[in-house]
């Protein structure tokens, strides 16, 4: 089993010294240290943790988000960091107010592993990672219209009734296998039937914004 003692990570003191008020608070839960960071400075903090001597959290274990059952509580974006060399873990969190913009800066430029992880958080929670080069839905299909499945206001069976889901599935356009981006690579776009081109141009498949 992992160490049980509630030991505070030694990274907290240098973090506070470096970033001051941007570190809003820190918590120890089940032996893991959680550092809450101001939304604006999150990218700076993560970049510093990655490269600063003595920290070297070079490995991004996971990115996820948490929404509590209490609708008053803010959404949290969670980064699980690890230093492979020092064998240390640190959890960094940013709180996003439900009323405000659900947006935080992407860490894709720091870790390529963030690519799909950020896409998944976007797909499931609707949190936008600014600066991500290809922020598309990943587990749900691109035209999925029911919202963000892991949000608490999303019912377990989905927003649409079963008959509506069936209707949409039957009405879906089976020709639109490729996204516009993929079709443009192949220069096949002009060879498509006119009605399909029109549908694609309307954004029926492909771009989200």
């Amino acid at each position, binding site marked *: *089993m*992992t160490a*049980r003692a509630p030991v505070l990570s030694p990274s907290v003191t240098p973090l506070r010294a470096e970033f001051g008020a941007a570190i809003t608070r820190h918590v120890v*839960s*089940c*032996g*893991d240290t*959680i550092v809450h960071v101001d939304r604006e400075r999150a990218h700076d903090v993560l970049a510093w943790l990655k490269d600063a001597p003595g920290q070297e959290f*070079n*490995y*991004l*274990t*996971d990115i*996820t988000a*948490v*929404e*509590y*059952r*209490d609708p008053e509580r803010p959404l949290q974006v*969670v980064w*699980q960091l690890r230093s*492979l060399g020092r*064998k240390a*873990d640190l*959890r960094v969190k940013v709180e996003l107010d439900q009323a405000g913009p659900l947006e935080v800066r992407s860490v894709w430029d720091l*870790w*390529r*592993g*963030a*690519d*799909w*992880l950020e896409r*998944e958080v976007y797909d*499931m929670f609707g949190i936008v990672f600014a600066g991500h080069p290809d922020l598309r*839905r*990943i*587990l*749900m*299909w691109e035209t999925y219209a029911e919202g963000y*499945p*892991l949000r608490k206001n*999303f019912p*377990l069976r989905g927003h649409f009734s079963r008959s509506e889901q069936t209707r949409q599935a039957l009405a879906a356009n089976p020709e639109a*296998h*490729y996204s516009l*981006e*993929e*079709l443009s*690579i*192949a*220069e*096949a776009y002009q060879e498509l039937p006119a009605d399909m081109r029109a549908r694609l141009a309307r954004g029926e498949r492909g771009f989200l914004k």
Partner: protein
Amino acid sequence: MSLRTVEMALATPGVDAEGRPLRVPLGAGDGDGPLPEPGAEPMLVNIGPQHPATHGVLRLVLELEGETVKRCIPHIGYLHSGFEKLGEYRQYNQIIPLTDRTDYLSPMANNVCLAMAAEKLMGIEVTERCRVLRVIACEMSRIISHLVWLGTTGIDLGAYTPFLWSFQERERVYNLQEMWTGARLTTSVTRVGGLMADVPDGFAAGLREFTRTFPKTLSEVDTMFTRNAIWIGRTQGVGALTAEEAINYSLSGPMLRASGVDYDVRKDRPYLDYETYDFDVPVGEHGDVYDRYRVRLEEMGQSNRILEQALDRLARLEGAPINVDDPRVILPPKALAMSDMESMIHHFKQVMEGIKPPAGEAYVGIENPKGELGYYFVSDGTAKPVRWRIRPPSFINLASLPRMCEGALLSDVIAINASVDIVMGEVDR
């Protein structure tokens, strides 16, 4: 011109009036102008989602220039089941059956990780016999998962025989799993604070026999593959990632170690007393498909060593309890629940209301066959988690596929994809 040649000309457009075959330009339509240069314009090739070499419902869109891959765009989600959402509506022990179905090639290891995450949340230390049995569960899972990988990768690259050998060995482990849990695939072997059941009579002997004979199969596979010219030609230098890239892409498990990063959760963040077992962690050098094969093959041998040591400990701990003595999580004995009022109430409340960890959060990562499997629980003090996050090793490893396929040949894509060792149940969850 005879009637016969006229009929022939009408019937077969590739024959001239004299009955001699015409030269038909390949691919060109009207015959006017020069033929297009082959490979001059990029081409899209779609593989999957129903394709045997994509190991499930993975779909790859490849942009080819000639036979070289310019870009690879994976599409996933065809098997998305919303396990994380379902977990928020279930009690902790009820989530265990869901974990069987994520990485269904190593269900027991997933069960162990889930129980450990819930135990970390509650601050429970499981008994020694339970830890030994969980190590056995994890290492059996590693062997069967790597055997599936070995067999299917062999088939992808044209080697059929090792598939039969590996699946025969895998069958023996499945028989043991069935003996222990009653199920071959959906094992649900752990419970928070212990195990569903102790191993039955004959299990230890059966596993001992397996560990005695399994290395022979491994050495046969080694003879067949390791110095095989075709195998080497298809795998060496293919899909290589450097150590820096492997870390940057958050790879884990054999994918990370094949690139030369010596990181194994069992050694570096030991759990279940792994620090007391004597085993080695194989580390590759080149980070290509061949090194991943070498790492996985050696890992099976090391798992076999761990199983032998665990069996010795199991014999020493004969009759020791498998469940913690903690009424918060463990049901009273059935005989007491049927005869003693307090025990019956305890049993009823435990089953109907579920166990209630204190508010807090815990992340537990263990070394699964595919890489680091992590379960992250956030609890608000009720019987159902606020958030159950799976850190899926297959998903994160697969995210490096576009990088590995850049500049590779089309046929290498199959080898590279196989070397990631994905299971779509876990990628899509």
